């Protein structure tokens, strides 16, 4: 059985490494400040005992005031999982650091989020639309997208 790690404990561990990185840790997920996202992710991937070597999914949810981006991580070594969340504010040009340098499984998924939600990922090697055509206007997965 894949055990989901206790988010509050991991939150404390991250907070000890990167002060101010953790905004809140609920029962199910650790909410991370978007500025330190890449550092936290690198820490989760490369620290012995955590070893999150497998990125299952990335998804984004539109809450109007902000977008929430959710990362599901799994460690194949220890068979445990963790959910990391981050928030990005603003609807004009929201942007986050890309995690492709850590997990290449983020490649197509970040492109998809850019395409459908309009969040740009800084440092992504090929940040362009994936399922819609290049001339398409708007980002249809947003809640306020007009039909």
């Amino acid at each position, binding site marked *: *059985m*894949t055990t989901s790690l206790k988010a509050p404990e991991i939150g404390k561990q991250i907070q000890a490494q990167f002060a101010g990185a953790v905004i809140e840790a609920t029962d*199910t997920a650790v909410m991370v400040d978007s500025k330190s996202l890449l550092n936290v992710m690198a820490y989760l991937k490369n620290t012995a005992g955590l070893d999150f*070597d*497998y*990125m*299952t*999914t990335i*998804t984004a*949810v*539109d809450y109007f005031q902000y977008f929430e981006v*959710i990362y*599901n991580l799994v460690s*194949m070594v220890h*068979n445990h999982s963790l*959910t990391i969340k981050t928030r990005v504010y603003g609807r004009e040009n929201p942007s986050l650091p890309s995690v492709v340098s850590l*997990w*290449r*499984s983020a*490649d*197509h*998924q970040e492109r998809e989020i850019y395409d*459908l939600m309009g969040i740009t990922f800084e440092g992504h090697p090929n940040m362009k639309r*994936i*399922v*819609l*055509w290049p001339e398409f206007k708007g980002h*249809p*997965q947003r809640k306020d997208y007009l039909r």
Partner: protein
Amino acid sequence: MTLRTEPFVINMGPVHPSTHGVFRMRVTLDGEVVVNLEPIFGYLHRGIEKLAEERTYTGIIPLTDRLDYVASMTNNLAYCLSVEKLAGITVPERAEYLRVIMSELQRIAAHLISVGSFFNDCGAYFTPFLYMFRERERIVDLFEMVTGQRLLYNYMRPGGVSQDIPEEFLPALQEVLKQMPLYIDEYERLLKDNEILYARARGVGILTKEMAVNIGASGPVLRGCGVKWDIRKVDPYSIYDRFEFDVPVGTQGDCYDRYRVRIEEMKQSLRIVEQAAKQIPDGPIRSDVPQLIRPPAGEAYGHLEAPTGEVGFYLVSDGSIAPYRCHIRAPSLMNLTALRDMIVGWKVQDLIVIFGSFAITMGEVDR
């Protein structure tokens, strides 16, 4: 005198017999050698994630059929697992057994198509494919008996399944269980040690263990590299912890290993179905679930081992009758991340074999 060569670009697809649907690759060739490849998606994008936001929780099940359309049973189940997790719905015993029987039969049917079309791509044009369609037909007949459908079954429901099996189902299943190993033996005799297959698939399109994990590969593509990772074992859902089965893995991660893993998985699936058919109890097939499900506000991720890999649904509920957000993890999309790395440097005829060994379904890649 040396001849001057220059690279040229060709388009493979979106309409091409070996692209398994509507997939397009912009391939740059230097003579016969592939020097660059860019996959282009989206020809089958129907916006299922967006459509799901305006449907009731049960109304989404037919949409999930249309993801991996050769394995709709497992898609249905993955979605229902997420809804059950979100709303805290329990499933009666008999329904669990029916779910396992259907999922495993579906795995065999889907692998038959994958392996059959892989041989198509290897140049064994349509003979193995038709052999495998003959056997798949037997399984599809069973599904038709239960659901009335032959491709998109719409069978699983949150809290159970849509209908009970008719009384002629179990005898017919026993007949299939008796014959299927003989069919698989036949493929093994005809194809396993075929010299042309060795030449085309062995050592071709190698995916290393490290890269497979890093790109988020799953299913036979991951296990072909030798990583023993099967959701049925590492995170058992439904009642998979009650059955005895092995997880076949490959050794070097080439096209041949991926084909072998699929064949071995079919044998294991038969083992599971055999045990489940023996143990299936009587009882209700669905728990008491309201017509309009209103899960409490929250989030849930349910996943399972589908024929192509890990299918998962990330559902966000705001307490209403429709999900606020429904994200689908499509294994085929993830598996394709390494496509360029695996193909560059090989010849154009190897491209077809390597791509065929992924056995992607475009309905799932584009959603």
